[in-house]
């Protein structure tokens, strides 16, 4: 009886040990699976992180490279191109010989410029009362003993490299300013056609004195300002240079000094010389 009891007890103990072992092994296997999974998932994450970093780095490198290329391109545009919406900026002063191949087209004010600056090396196609329409029609320029219009003279002269235009003071009374712009545009087109390589400078209209401006319905600085805005826009549209001579001669009130012109319009000698100095320090290098 005791033996049976002992045998039975021994069998029970064996079974319990077996079950315990099974549980332990299962637990170990389970833990191993978790560990393996963790290890694998960790390495995957790292790989993913690495891949992501790599992709991000490459992308950012690409963006930087592209930005640099864009900057380079922009710089090239600035170096080769020109922003025609802006007036010609200050430049290193040139000497009088710069105007050897220049043509000046203008009215009595430009005649004064010719007389008082002594710049005899330039060519002048000027006439008192000259306007943007009469440049095409009035035979006022003496060419080889024949009188021709300013624009015909321009067509006959293919040697000039720079054209400086100042017209508009005699047109201030015109009813339609768009007609003025249209005719002015025709002048530029004609110069471009006859001499495509010439630099064309539209000079702003020089204001008048305060006493003239405040007493004259036509020749006043409000009207001149309006015309200058139209001229700057025209320069931008036609891709020619706008040189703001007015800024070099006007005082802070936008008028030229009272003692600068006998009639408030036509400049005296020192102011014509000031005008020339402005042109000499506002040039664009030919590309």
């Amino acid at each position: 009886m005791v033996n049976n009891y002992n045998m039975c007890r021994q069998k029970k103990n064996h079974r319990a040990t077996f079950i315990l072992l099974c549980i332990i092994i299962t637990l170990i296997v389970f833990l191993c699976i978790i560990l393996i999974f963790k290890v694998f998932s960790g390495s995957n994450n790292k790989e993913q992180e690495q891949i992501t970093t790599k992709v991000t780095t490459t992308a950012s490198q690409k963006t930087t490279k592209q930005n640099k290329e864009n900057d380079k391109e922009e710089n090239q545009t600035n170096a080769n191109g020109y922003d025609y919406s802006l007036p010609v900026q200050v430049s290193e002063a040139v000497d009088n010989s710069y105007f050897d191949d220049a043509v000046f087209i203008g009215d009595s004010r430009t005649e004064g410029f010719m007389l008082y600056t002594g710049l005899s090396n330039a060519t002048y196609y000027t006439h008192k009362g000259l306007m943007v329409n009469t440049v095409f029609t009035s035979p006022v320029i003496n060419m080889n003993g024949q009188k021709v219009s300013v624009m015909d003279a321009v067509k006959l002269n293919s040697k000039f490299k720079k054209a400086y235009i100042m017209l508009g003071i005699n047109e201030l009374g015109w009813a339609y300013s768009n007609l003025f712009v249209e005719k002015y545009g025709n002048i530029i087109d004609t110069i471009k056609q006859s001499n495509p390589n010439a630099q064309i400078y539209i000079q702003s209209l020089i204001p008048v004195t305060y006493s003239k401006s405040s007493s004259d319905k036509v020749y006043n600085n409000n009207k001149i300002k309006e015309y200058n805005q139209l001229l700057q826009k025209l320069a931008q549209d036609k891709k020619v240079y706008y040189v703001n001579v007015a800024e070099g001669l006007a005082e802070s009130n936008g008028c030229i000094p009272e003692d600068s012109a006998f009639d408030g319009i036509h400049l005296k000698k020192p102011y014509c010389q000031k005008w020339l100095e402005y042109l000499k320090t506002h040039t664009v290098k030919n590309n």
Partner: protein
Amino acid sequence: MKKVTSILLALFLCLFVTACGQKELNIDTASLTSDLLKNVKFEDEISEIDGNIISSIYEVDTTVIKATAYIGSGATAEEIAVFEAPDKEKAKEVLALANKHIEEQKSDFESYNPKEIKKLNNAKVVQKDKYVIICVTDDENNASKVINKYLK
């Protein structure tokens, strides 16, 4: 004897007059210009012009003809120009060019500023010996006085 004396006197007078006539006129052109600027009234502020520009305005060769010119700002036709040619014949050519210049000015100012036509019509354009003088001003009397003082 009386007859011989008369003939000799007549001969002497003839020689004297001829000698006087041959006397070359010499003018200090700088002084003349200065006198015109000082004693003649100008509405505009006339200013001195460089030689090369004078050449293109008056169409004279300033390497041969000595020239001084003061011109108005463009508002008026006022001007002074004094030319000294190498000889009387050349001066006559300059006179023709001076008259041509005044005619062109008349044509320009007719439509631009007709008020100036009176000055141009009364412009002093004078030639004596090798000299030619132009003076355009409203103050014609004083201009004449100064010019005559130098040309007499």
